[in-house]
């Protein structure tokens, strides 16, 4: 092999000597993924803390220590961080970067330097988003959706958040573009689309959404800025504009964005279930195609956010039915996963526990979503705690739980060490109990009419808020516990070896753990399906030096 500038330090610019600068300038996809994770979890904990402050405020009716305006800013901060900084880039940026190229046997993504640039664009976006916290006018109080005309009229610093969301959207587009080209061009010889691991399918469907939907919200945010600062009139009724147009344009992106969050998470599920059932996945093609069809249908359902905003009845009915259709491919996936476990040798390791827990929580989150897709029910439940509980069950109990599952699953791959299984399991149970105690009462409170985004409430809702509060305490303790387990695993864990889970996909067939620069020692020829087990043992074995099959 000839040496390129890239071989020596894997840096975008020059050959820095210091370890720190080597990380900052790295184009290595694994390091970039780890840096994404570090930045994201930093913001994640800020958002968790904000949410906990809101729960504290809501412990009793009336104002405790926050006034209404501060509360508005608090839920906006929570939403903006969780959506734009954490969960939208989340799994693709972390595991799409770390694992996807390994899974397809590539040396890196298609555009490594663009990947590096994208990471820093993301960091700039996060800094811009946070900077308005330190200005006089204060952080935006519009909610993460920036609905016009309020976002046009508010005196808080919405422009920072709008610009930040645009920059983060740009980073998201570039990540998606990079992954699309990578998956199309850099698969190892012999690996056709039907031999790709399902996580890669998830990333592939996600990348299309990132590419096709994000530009629309990008221009919407620019139009909102133009409206607010140059008065072009497009969203301002005082100049003939139509605020509902903003809602349409916003949700044309932001509803597909929901599927953009969940599809890679489903991909993680599809990796974990066969490995810990020691059985080939049931309905591989059905799962792969359902990812693609969720992405496709998900594009056409945005109107269900606007049932109460003023829309033709025919349009409402069409949007309602299209929304029901999303449940079909999602259901196919769930039945396939359960069928995979049937007659399998189920091993209840921590990643599998998280995956199984998610089957419960996401089913609740998904099915409550179907109920509010019905027009009549939605009129009653729109903007109540029912909706809040629904999307937290889907997002936290779906996407983030599966992100945690993936973190346990790929922890030995990334660090080369093993965390403590016993403590990992305990932290799962604590979080699972805390999670349900935190969110389930909100379904009931919402059904009885507790509106979302209020800092005060009627005394009859107190019991639900207090249950939620105790759930939050338990959940956050479990969360901290889990990260302590990770930290201890990383510093003091036992070496894990290259394939601790007896998994079959290519990221577990590396010469060392953690993986070396440039990944596999040789690119393998792929003439096997991703999850081949025979009597509970992986079929495909490699010589890790030559990457020739030896089974």
């Amino acid at each position, binding site marked *: *092999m*000839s*040496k*390129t*500038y*890239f071989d020596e330090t894997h840096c975008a610019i020059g050959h820095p000597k210091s370890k720190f600068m080597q990380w900052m300038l790295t184009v290595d996809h694994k390091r970039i993924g780890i840096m994404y994770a570090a930045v994201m979890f930093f913001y994640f904990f800020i958002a968790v803390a904000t949410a906990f402050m809101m729960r504290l405020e809501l412990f009793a009716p009336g104002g405790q220590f926050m006034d209404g305006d501060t509360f508005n800013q608090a839920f906006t901060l929570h939403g903006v961080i969780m959506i734009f900084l954490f969960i939208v880039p989340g799994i693709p940026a972390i595991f799409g970067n770390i694992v996807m190229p390994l899974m397809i046997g*590539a*040396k*890196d*993504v*298609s*555009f*490594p330097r663009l990947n590096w640039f994208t990471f820093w664009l993301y960091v700039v976006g996060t800094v811009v988003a946070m900077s308005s916290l330190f200005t006089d006018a204060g952080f935006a109080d519009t909610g993460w959706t920036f609905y016009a005309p309020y976002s046009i009229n508010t005196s808080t610093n919405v422009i920072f958040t709008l610009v930040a969301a645009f920059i983060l959207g740009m980073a998201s*587009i570039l990540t998606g*573009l*990079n992954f*699309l*080209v*990578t998956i*199309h*061009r*850099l698969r*190892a*010889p*012999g690996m056709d689309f039907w031999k790709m691991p399902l996580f890669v399918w998830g990333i592939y469907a996600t990348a299309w959404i990132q*590419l*096709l939907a*994000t*530009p*629309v919200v*990008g*221009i*919407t945010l*620019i*139009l909102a800025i*133009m409206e607010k600062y*140059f*008065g*072009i*009139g*497009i969203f301002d009724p*005082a*100049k*003939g*504009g*139509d605020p509902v*147009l903003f809602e349409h*344009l916003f949700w*044309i992106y932001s509803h597909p964005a929901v599927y953009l969050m969940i599809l890679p998470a489903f991909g993680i599920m599809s990796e974990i279930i066969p490995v810990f059932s020691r059985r080939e996945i049931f309905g591989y093609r059905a799962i792969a195609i359902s990812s693609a069809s969720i992405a496709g249908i998900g594009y056409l359902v945005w109107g269900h956010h606007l049932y109460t905003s003023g829309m033709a009845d025919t349009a409402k009915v069409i949007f309602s039915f299209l929304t029901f259709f999303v449940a079909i491919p999602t259901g196919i996936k769930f039945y396939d996963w359960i069928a995979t476990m049937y007659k399998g040798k189920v091993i209840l390791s921590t990643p599998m526990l998280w995956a199984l827990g998610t089957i419960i929580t996401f089913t609740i989150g998904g099915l409550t979503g179907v109920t509010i897709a019905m027009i009549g029910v939605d009129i009653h439940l729109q903007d109540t705690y029912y909706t809040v509980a629904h999307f937290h069950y889907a997002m936290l109990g779906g996407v983030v739980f599966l992100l945690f599952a993936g973190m346990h699953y790929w922890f030995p791959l990334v660090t080369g060490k093993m965390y403590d299984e016993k403590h990992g399991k305990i932290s799962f149970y604590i979080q699972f109990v805390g999670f349900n105690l935190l969110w389930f009462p909100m379904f009931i409170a919402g059904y009885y009419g507790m509106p979302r985004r209020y800092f005060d409430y009627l005394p009859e809702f107190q019991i639900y808020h207090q249950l939620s509060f105790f759930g939050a305490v338990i959940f956050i303790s479990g969360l901290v516990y889990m990260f302590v387990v990770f930290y201890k695993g990383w510093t003091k864990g036992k070496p894990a070896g290259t394939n601790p889970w007896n998994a079959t996909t290519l990221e577990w067939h590396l010469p060392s753990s953690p993986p070396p620069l440039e990944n596999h020692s*040789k*690119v*393998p*020829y792929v*003439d096997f399906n991703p999850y081949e087990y025979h009597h509970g043992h992986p079929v495909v074995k490699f010589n890790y030096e030559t*990457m*020739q*099959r030896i089974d």
Partner: protein
Amino acid sequence: MSGPYVPEIATDRDGNQHEVQGWQDDFYGGKLGFWLFMFTEVLMFGAMFMALAYYNTLHPQDFLDASASLNRLLGGVNTVVLLISALTMGLGLLNMRVGKVKEAKLMIWATIILAAAFLVIKGFEWRAEYNHGIFLMHDQMLPGSSLPFGQKLFFGLYFTMTGLHGFHIIIGIGLMIWLLKRINAEKVRPDHHILHWNIALYWDIVHLIWVFVFPYYYMIGAGGVTGGH
């Protein structure tokens, strides 16, 4: 880069050898990536055209009146300038592909000059509109003015879209100057011209967007002025 990139070989179980596509020297990958990026540009402008069409259906007469007041001479000249610049850009790429580097550079310079001319003409146009009291945050466009809603929306979107298009022209000029530097440094060569290819593609999208902007803004009201409905 030190030394040319040599692709790896993967061997299957029957001993057959398969060349591995690396991220290095991936001409088609580079093209695919840039096509996808251009697709996002189309979606961005597409959303604005959708907003424009929506308000057009709400205020058809206002849109015709506002369109009639635009300067078709300057707009038309700009269209011609931009189309010629697309031609010079394409000729530059053709020259690069057959190895005529000097001619290619000349054509890129011609494109830069035409792009600058476009911006200057656009500037005159905006200035004339400003003098008529129509500009962002100015006179007729303020909330209290008597200009009808539809015209305000028309001009609001007009300045946003032509402004964003002009911004793309400025970026394009920057890209072309960078391209010239890369050609001079022999980083872009006849056998390695993906950057040239992609910038030419970018320029095509920029002129393509204008080809849609021009009729929708300048021509829909032309009938009222020329008398031919």
